[in-house]
């Protein structure tokens, strides 16, 4: 296409996303080149955590991202426990599940109700949506509030959960708190179904229809955020420890985030990918709804815009999963099974599913328990390559349909693409150099 001269617009600040993103579009009639730039300042976490004691390091890793701070904290904590050869108790494992599920509900309800829905309903933000969609917005906020209550109950606070530490938890929540959490979860359960109906009723732009390679942690018995094997819809599978050989990154000059490749091609992670890989392991009402949406074609895996609907399904599933975990917790003794931590030299690798997709951690410690080497890859970094390709495909698709669309309308459509991925740009900009 050659270098197109006329640059029409730059979106300085991508709205309703986490972190600083920009879109630059060069357009000449129907010739177009769209560049998505992720320019949130780099913070070099792998570099600055070197030499820090393990308990300080995991608290720093939690600061990589606010929305999925629970995933970053727990993944770095579990990687550290693998490096020290520590095995945690069942109460800690259950509480960790509850904490991650609550962070999923909080993150998805934030994205579905506050960040993505305004796009599809033609509003600048959720608050202005309140005139026509008042109940949906307030119910969405209540769901987010309940999820935050659980994150604070288990993790000590809603963002950067201090209570989750290497070896277990500082303080165990009381039975009354858990009973209250259980009641509140039941109250917000129907909001998840409202979100599913709302998103299923909208028709997604077709411009992104195409071929996606979905990657997620492989689940055998039930849909979950933890696992030891990474699987993909292209059939490639590999154990967690080998992620740096299979998922290769190359830096690009226009962004602080890099492109990621699996077998030389871009791939996608996130809610849609989890359903693509493990949809069958859902259970209860969410499995029933999932199957209906697949058969009716309302949910398809060949278009990134369905990620929002996938998140809505996960909302319902993780509410049920949290209720299940709470039932188990409420009929077992609640005395703290926190493990004594004796640091020793070693390397720990751990991948868990964060709301936006798999997050990978490799941390190496010396015998004093200080960080020697760290490699952290966030989901949005894995998605950046595919997102960038989709912005370009969306631009071409729109211009093919109606070439004389005016610039503002054109840009408003393009902005919807990164928002569909629910990007977390602050996480993505601190990647490690090639293996």
């Amino acid at each position, binding site marked *: 296409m050659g270098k197109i001269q006329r640059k029409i617009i730059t979106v300085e600040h991508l709205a*309703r996303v986490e972190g600083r993103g920009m879109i630059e579009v060069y357009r000449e009639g129907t010739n177009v080149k769209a560049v998505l730039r992720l320019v949130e*300042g780099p913070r*070099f976490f792998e570099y600055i955590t070197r030499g820090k004691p393990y308990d300080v390091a995991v608290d720093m890793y939690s600061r*990589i991202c606010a929305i999925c701070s629970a995933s970053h904290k727990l993944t770095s904590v579990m990687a550290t426990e693998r490096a020290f050869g520590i095995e945690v108790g069942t109460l800690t494992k259950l509480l960790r599940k509850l904490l991650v599920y609550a962070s999923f509900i909080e993150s998805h309800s934030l994205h579905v109700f*506050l960040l993505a829905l305004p796009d599809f309903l033609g509003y600048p933000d959720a608050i202005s949506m309140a005139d026509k969609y008042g109940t949906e917005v307030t119910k969405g906020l209540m769901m987010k509030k309940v999820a935050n209550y659980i994150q604070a109950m288990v993790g000590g606070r809603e963002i950067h959960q201090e209570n989750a530490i290497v070896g277990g938890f500082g303080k165990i929540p009381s039975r009354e708190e858990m009973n209250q959490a259980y009641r509140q979860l039941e109250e917000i359960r129907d909001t998840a179904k409202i979100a599913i109906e709302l998103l299923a009723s909208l028709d997604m732009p077709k411009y992104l229809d195409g071929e996606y390679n979905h990657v997620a942690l492989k689940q055998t018995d039930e849909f979950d955020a933890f696992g030891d094997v990474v699987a993909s819809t292209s059939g490639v599978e590999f154990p967690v420890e080998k992620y740096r050989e299979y998922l290769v990154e190359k830096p690009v000059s226009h962004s602080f985030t890099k492109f990621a490749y699996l077998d030389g091609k871009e791939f996608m992670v996130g809610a849609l990918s989890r359903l693509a890989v493990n949809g069958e392991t859902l259970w209860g009402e969410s499995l029933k709804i999932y199957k209906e949406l697949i058969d009716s074609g309302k949910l398809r895996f060949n278009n990134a815009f369905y990620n929002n609907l996938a998140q809505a399904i996960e909302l319902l599933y993780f509410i049920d999963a949290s209720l299940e975990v709470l039932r188990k917790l409420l009929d077992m003794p609640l005395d703290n099974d926190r493990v004594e931590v004796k640091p020793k030299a070693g390397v720990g690798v751990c991948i868990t599913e964060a709301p936006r997709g798999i997050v990978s951690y490799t941390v190496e410690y010396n015998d004093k328990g200080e960080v020697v080497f760290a490699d952290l890859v966030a989901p949005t970094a894995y998605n950046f390559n595919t997102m960038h390709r989709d912005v370009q495909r969306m631009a071409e698709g729109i211009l093919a349909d109606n070439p004389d669309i005016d610039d503002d309308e054109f840009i408003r459509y393009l902005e919807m693409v990164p928002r569909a991925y629910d990007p977390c740009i602050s996480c993505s900009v601190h990647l490690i*150099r090639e293996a």
Partner: protein
Amino acid sequence: MEKRELRVGFYPTTSCYGCQLNVLNIEDKLIDIFTEVKIVCFHMATSASKIEESVDVAFIEGAVVTEDDEELVKKVREKAKYVVAMGTCACHGGVQSANIGAGFSLDEAIKTVYGENFQFDMKVMPPRPLDKVIDVDFYLPGCPIEKEEFLYFLATFIWSTWPEQKDFPVCQECRQKGNPCVVIEEGKPCLGPFTTAGCGARCPSLGLPCMGCRGPIKEIQRVDAMAKMMEKNGVDPLEALKRMKVFGGHSDEIIEKFKSLVRGE
């Protein structure tokens, strides 16, 4: 006192967006916030954000790292009556400034993370807190900020005055809650006596040492006294300073003490 509509803006630089998210986490008052004041710019929440318009109060989150950050904060300073440094990144440089003045080199950082011969097309600098770039009127510390304190700040501006800043440590709140003292009880390296209050001593109430996420108290930075206290509990001074610097990256006393220790005084 008639109630004029207060114009408020939220502007992010380099950070984890936790402080802005915590504003969105005030679920039961979020709609009041959007109706009681005029939100002029809040990219994370609304695409109807006009960044060039003037505001009464500008909440700026994050440390200044890229040239875009610097340009943004200078532009906001001109157009805002009050600038509030929101969050420990803006107040003290945050976690990303943990090694400033203690062995941080930007080139090595870029080399470690992005590989040998790599050039961005945007200039990158070591992270700085807001008051190293522009004049800051008020400091709202915390990692992330406290919801109640944010509402207090906003309310004082609505009542046409300004907030009182806390100059006392977390210990005050910890003792008021009747928590056992983590330092005396288990000799843990708790930064409570040194960190700005406002969180209700959340971590010591969980039996964990305070890690200082609200940044050091501006006036009394008893760095030597803290180092001595932790030394008595078996934490060697260099490691004590490392812990103090995690959220107190740009405190001159700590950097000086760190340098003197490294020189082996």
